[in-house]
C-alpha cells in the first residue's frame, strides 16, 4: 500500500528523469560552470593556481574599448542581417507564394545555400570577393561600376560578411514564409477584393497580420543567431581588418587560451544581452502578433 503510494508520487519524476539528466548535464551544468569560471583568473596549466577574483573580469570587460568595439560590430551585423533577411525573404516569399512549377524550382534554388556548409560558402565567397582577381569585381568592372575592396578594407568588410550571411539564410526563411502565405485562406483575399481593398492595404491589413507569428519567430531566431555569429568571421576575416569584423563570439574565442576567466565573463555578458533583447522583443511585439 505505502509502496504503491510512494511510486505514485515518484512516477512523474522518474518519467522526466532521463530528459532532466540530459538538460542538467548539457545545459544547466555548463551554464553554471561558465558563470563559475568567469569569477576566476583561471590557469589552464595548473588549476590549483587559479585565483578567485570576484567580479574583476566583468569590471575589466566593461572598461575595455575592444569589447565595445566588438559589441558595436555585432549590433551592426545583427541589424544588417535581420533587416535584410526579413525584407528580402518576405519579398521573395510573396513572389513565390503562387504554386507553379517555375516557383517550385526557384524556391529549391534559393534554398540550396542552406544545405551547404557555411565553411564552404565562406570560402567560395572569399574567393569571389578577392579584390583584384575575384568574380564580383570582374562583374562590377564589366558593368562599369566602381569596384570594392570587399573583405580587405575595414570600411567594406562588415558589409561583405553581412551579404554572405543573408545570402545563406534567405532560402530557409523564405521557405517558412511561403508556407505561412500559402496557409492563408484564398477566400479571405476574395472577401477583401469585394471590400474594395487596394493591394497595399490587403498586404498591410491582412497578409502581414496573418503571417505575423512566423515573422516574429524569424525575428527572434535570427537576432539570437546573429548575435552569436562566428564561423563566417573566423573563415573570411579572422576579425580583421583592424578589428572591423570582430564580433562578440569571435572576441570570446580569441581569449580561449590566454584568459579563460575573461572569456567566460564575456560569454555571460553576451548571454545577458541576448536575454534582455528577447524580453524586449516579447514586450514590444507580442501585441502586434496575431496567434490564431
Amino acid at each position, binding site marked *: 500500500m505505502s509502496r504503491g503510494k510512494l511510486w505514485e508520487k515518484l512516477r512523474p519524476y522518474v518519467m522526466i528523469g532521463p530528459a532532466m539528466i540530459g538538460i542538467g548535464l548539457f545545459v544547466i551544468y555548463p551554464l553554471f560552470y561558465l558563470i563559475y569560471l568567469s569569477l576566476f583568473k583561471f590557469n589552464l596549466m595548473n588549476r590549483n593556481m587559479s585565483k578567485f577574483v570576484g567580479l574583476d573580469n566583468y569590471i575589466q570587460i566593461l572598461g575595455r574599448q575592444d569589447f565595445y568595439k566588438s559589441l558595436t560590430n555585432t549590433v551592426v551585423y545583427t541589424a544588417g542581417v535581420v533587416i535584410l533577411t526579413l525584407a528580402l525573404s518576405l519579398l521573395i516569399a510573396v513572389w513565390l507564394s503562387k504554386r507553379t512549377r517555375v516557383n517550385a524550382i526557384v524556391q529549391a534554388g534559393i534554398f540550396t545555400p542552406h544545405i551547404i556548409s557555411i565553411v564552404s560558402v565562406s570560402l567560395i565567397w572569399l574567393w569571389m570577393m578577392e579584390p583584384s582577381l575575384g568574380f564580383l569585381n570582374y562583374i562590377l568592372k564589366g558593368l562599369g561600376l566602381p569596384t570594392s575592396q570587399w573583405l580587405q578594407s575595414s570600411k567594406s568588410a562588415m558589409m561583405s560578411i553581412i551579404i554572405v550571411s543573408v545570402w545563406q539564410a534567405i532560402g530557409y526563411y523564405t521557405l517558412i514564409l511561403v508556407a505561412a502565405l500559402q496557409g492563408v485562406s484564398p*477566400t*479571405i483575399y*476574395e*472577401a477583401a477584393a*469585394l*471590400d474594395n*481593398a487596394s493591394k497595399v492595404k490587403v498586404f498591410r*491589413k*491582412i497578409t502581414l497580420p496573418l503571417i505575423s507569428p512566423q515573422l516574429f519567430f524569424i525575428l527572434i531566431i535570427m537576432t539570437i543567431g546573429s548575435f552569436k555569429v562566428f564561423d563566417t568571421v573566423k573563415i573570411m576575416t579572422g576579425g580583421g581588418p583592424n578589428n572591423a569584423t570582430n564580433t562578440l563570439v569571435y572576441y570570446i574565442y580569441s581569449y580561449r587560451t590566454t584568459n579563460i576567466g575573461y572569456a567566460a565573463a564575456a560569454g555571460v555578458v553576451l548571454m545577458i544581452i541576448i536575454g534582455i533583447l528577447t524580453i524586449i522583443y516579447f514586450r514590444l511585439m507580442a501585441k502586434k502578433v496575431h496567434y*490564431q
Partner: protein
Amino acid sequence: MASIEFVNVTKEFDKKEIIKDLNLKIEDGTFTVLVGPSGCGKTTLLRMIAGIGPQTSGAVLIDGKDVTDIAPGKRGVAMVFQNYAIYPTMSVRENIEFGLKNNKVKKAERTELVESISAAVGLTDFLDRKPSTLSGGQRQRIALARAMVKKPSVFLMDEPLSNLDAKLRAQMRIDLIELHKKLGTTFVYVTHDQVEAMSMADTIVLMNQGLIQQEAPPETIYHEPSNIFVAQFIGVPPMNIDELGVGGVKFGFRPESAIGSTEAGTTPFSIRGEVVTREMLGSETLYKINYKDTSFMIKSLEDRFTVNQQVYVSVPTEKMYFFGEDGNRIPTSHPSYSSYIEALRSY
C-alpha cells in the same frame, strides 16, 4: 437594386468546360436561389457575378451594364462566403467597417452604420471581440453584417448556412427571408439543399452539370418539373419513378400523392405491395412499399400500416407524371397522354 444577366457565358477550368453558353436573367429585387448537386456550376456563376472568378467568355451584366472589366469591389455587390471568410486578425467592428474604410466613408457615418447594422444582427455586445472568440452563428452574423453595411445592390450568398446546426439554420432561413423583404435588394443564394431553395426562393434556378434544368418559382418547380432530374431533386423523399413499358416512357408520382389502403383502388394506377420499412416522423409517416422487383416511397398523414403488411397503393390520375425517353416531362396536352394513362392499368 440591380438586375443580373448572363449572356452566352462559358467557364473553363483547366481546359474543361464547366459551364457552356449559359443564358440567365435574374430580375431586380428577387430572391433567386441557384440550387443543384455539387459540381453543377452554381458557385461558379455566383463568383462570376462577384468578379472573383471571371467567365472565360460571354458577358455578365449588372443593371444592363457589362461588368467584365469592373473590379469586384466596384460592382456594388456583397458576398457571404460558405466559410464566412472573416478577417481573423481584426475585431468584429474592424471586420464590418473594413469595406467602408476602403470606400472612404467618413468616420462619423461609418460608426453610425456599424452600430445600426450590428444592432440589427445582434452583435452590439461583441463589437470589440476577436472573431475567434465567437460561435459559428455569431460569425455568420459578422459575415452578414459585413455584407449589409456596404448597402450593396446585389447580395450574393454561397451556402451561408451549411456550417450551422439544424436549429440555427431554420432560424437563419426565416431571418434571411425577412432581411430580403426589408431591404428589397436582389439576393442570389447558392445552396445544394433543396429545402433552403424551396423555403426562401422567389425563383429557383435548378442546375446540373453546368446546364440550367429549370428556372421557375418553387410551386412550379414542385408541381410542374420540366424533367426527371428536377422531379427527383426537389422533394423529400424524391419522386417515385419507374418504366411504364411503352416506348421508353417513364411514369412518376410524389410520395404524398399516393393513397395507401387495405382495399383495392379504382384509379388506373393501383397496385398491391408489401410494407418493408416504416418511418414515423411525427406529423407524417413514410412507408417503403415493395412491388414486384421495385419499390415505392409513400408518405401518409396517418399511421395505419405495419411492416410486412400487404397494402394497396393508388395514385389519382391527375397526380401522375410522364417523362419521355429524353427525360423531359410529357405535357397533359400530348396526343398519346391518355394512352399512357391506360398503360398504367397493366403495370
